């Protein structure tokens, strides 16, 4: 197990390195630069600006410089948000994005697993069809549709919650964004749980547990549910990746000052360093969370072989 874990952890670095290298050069292939404004700058000024940011150097030299900065935790200056470094920008928004994402995953687990279990135990009943029908909708509806609809119903018509915005420490502002973000994950977890629980319920050890007279409640909670949740655990990696990318939209819809919006703004403005910074931070985040999910899976399921 230790050797397996170590190898997996070390395996993250080459992947990250390839991602950084690929995105660095692909982004530079793009036509236009950060200083192409609607009103063209005089060539001398543009040249000076580019020299100041080191953009006049050969691409390989810029790349090596960027890498050596990264090692020291320096993501470079932002081209559009002058006076801010990319590190500062991301550090400001990341806590809100993380809070949003982690709450959404937690909510999805708390709601999705019971719903899926219920549907499996009442297989082919109206309850089952109802839950699974809603789940298909939940998966099909993108958050940029559900988000505005929730804001409309619960914010504008019912006035239960704020439509959008953010005040530090006010959790009311997080409710709608978290629900919006969690909805497809809830639906997917419910479907996964139902499917694998149905499979487990047909196995011999569940029949044995029933045969020796255990109460149904104990059969489900103690014996069936634990192996049935393995697919859910392995879905947690992709789920966090989904939640991370989903936060791009949800932060835009609900006007949250998270860091997700920087990726889009950076792409629109050709703000190379900002886009790169986002890719490095969110890329490592995804890789780490996938790794954690894998390790938990290996720990829960002794059948996973470590070679």
């Amino acid at each position, binding site marked *: 197990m230790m050797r397996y874990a170590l190898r997996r952890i070390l395996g993250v670095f080459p992947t990250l390195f390839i991602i950084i290298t690929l995105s660095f050069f692909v982004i530079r292939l793009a036509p236009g630069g950060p200083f192409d404004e609607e009103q063209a700058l005089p060539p001398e000024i543009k040249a000076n600006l580019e020299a100041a940011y080191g953009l006049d150097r050969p691409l390989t030299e810029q790349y090596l410089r960027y890498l050596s900065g990264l090692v020291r935790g320096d993501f470079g200056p932002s081209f559009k948000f002058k006076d801010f470094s990319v590190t500062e920008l991301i550090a400001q928004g990341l806590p809100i994005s993380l809070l949003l994402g982690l709450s959404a995953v937690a909510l999805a687990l708390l709601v999705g697993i019971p719903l899926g279990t219920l549907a499996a135990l009442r297989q082919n009943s109206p309850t089952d069809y109802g839950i699974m029908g809603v789940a298909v909708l939940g998966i099909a509806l993108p958050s940029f549709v559900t988000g505005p609809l929730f804001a409309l119903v619960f914010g504008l018509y019912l006035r239960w919650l704020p439509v959008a915005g953010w005040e530090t420490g006010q959790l009311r502002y997080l409710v709608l964004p978290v629900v919006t973000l969690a909805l497809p994950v809830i639906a997917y977890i419910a479907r996964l749980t139902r499917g694998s629980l149905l499979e487990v319920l047909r196995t011999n050890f569940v029949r044995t547990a029933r045969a020796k007279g255990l109460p149904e409640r104990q059969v489900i909670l103690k014996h069936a549910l634990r192996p049935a949740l393995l697919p859910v655990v392995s879905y947690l990696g992709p*789920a966090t990746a989904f939640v991370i990318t989903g936060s791009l939209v949800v932060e835009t819809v609900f006007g949250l000052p998270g860091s997700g919006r920087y990726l889009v703004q950076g792409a629109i403005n050709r703000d190379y360093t900002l886009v790169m910074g986002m890719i490095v931070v969110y890329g490592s985040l995804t890789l780490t969370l996938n790794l954690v999910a894998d390790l938990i899976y290996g720990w829960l399921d002794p059948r996973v072989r470590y070679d």
Partner: protein
Amino acid sequence: MTELAPGAAPSQALTTPPGAATPQVAPGPAAATVASRGFWADAWRRLKRNKAAMMAATVIVLVTLVAFVGPALSPHAFDAIDWENMAVPPGGPNDHWLGTDRLGRDLYVRTLHGVQISLQIGLLATLVSLCIGVTWGATAGYLGGRIDELMMRFVDVLYALPYIFIVIILSTLFERGNIYVLFVAIGAVGWLTMARIVRGQTLSIKRKEFIEAALASGVSTPSILARHIVPNVIGPVIIYATLTIPQMILFESFLSFLGLGVQEPQASLGSLINEGAQEMESAVWMLLVPASFLVTLLTCFNFLGDGLRDALDPRDR
């Protein structure tokens, strides 16, 4: 894939060394290997019995017809401004059947215009990803060994980054508004899951007797791939392609919603939803009209994909 749709394959599959075993993403070998005329007739019968899937297919055909014929029925062009009727709700005393937007442009024509773009892009990107994914997966699976390992390692690395990041990076590469080129590019990186599925299927059939027979009679590797491997993995490929279309539609709306896709005065469901969300306090129809079209399309494609899976992969019955 599917960083947008949460139905991504479990991440474990990425980490098992390629060539070790058939990856779990493969939806069961049974679907492809027993393929025969009887199989297809059987699948069609099962599909016809699935009411949800048949209804979804009907709705998709209807929406497609309306999207391509409907705009001609309205007297308005998608970018024409009607100065007399700005932001009027649907059903008013004018010929704007679904109302107009803030600039007085006809919402019925603009929405159908958006549906056209969505459908075209969904198909285009899916076709591109289908071609690359099937070729890549079948080649890697059939050749095996070092080449397989290299090819699938490449897939793993691309997989590690959320797909939408690749999409956003690509969107900076092309002139804004050149949406078709953008989606050829997006399709060109959207083949990862397809490649995995096809590779898994190929591994499971490449030791079968009919391949050996072909080898023994001296058929070349490319034609074994094209004539014997690919036709036999077509079942899962169809299922997955049906599920890729809504995903690509979703990516397009997503990019347009964020302002990275279709540009004014062109309309896409995503950009219309974005405009509508900003106006929803005073003009809720601007949000509801494009949103309901998008939701209908996505739901129908998902139901159809699920139905096809049940019909072509009867493992779970």
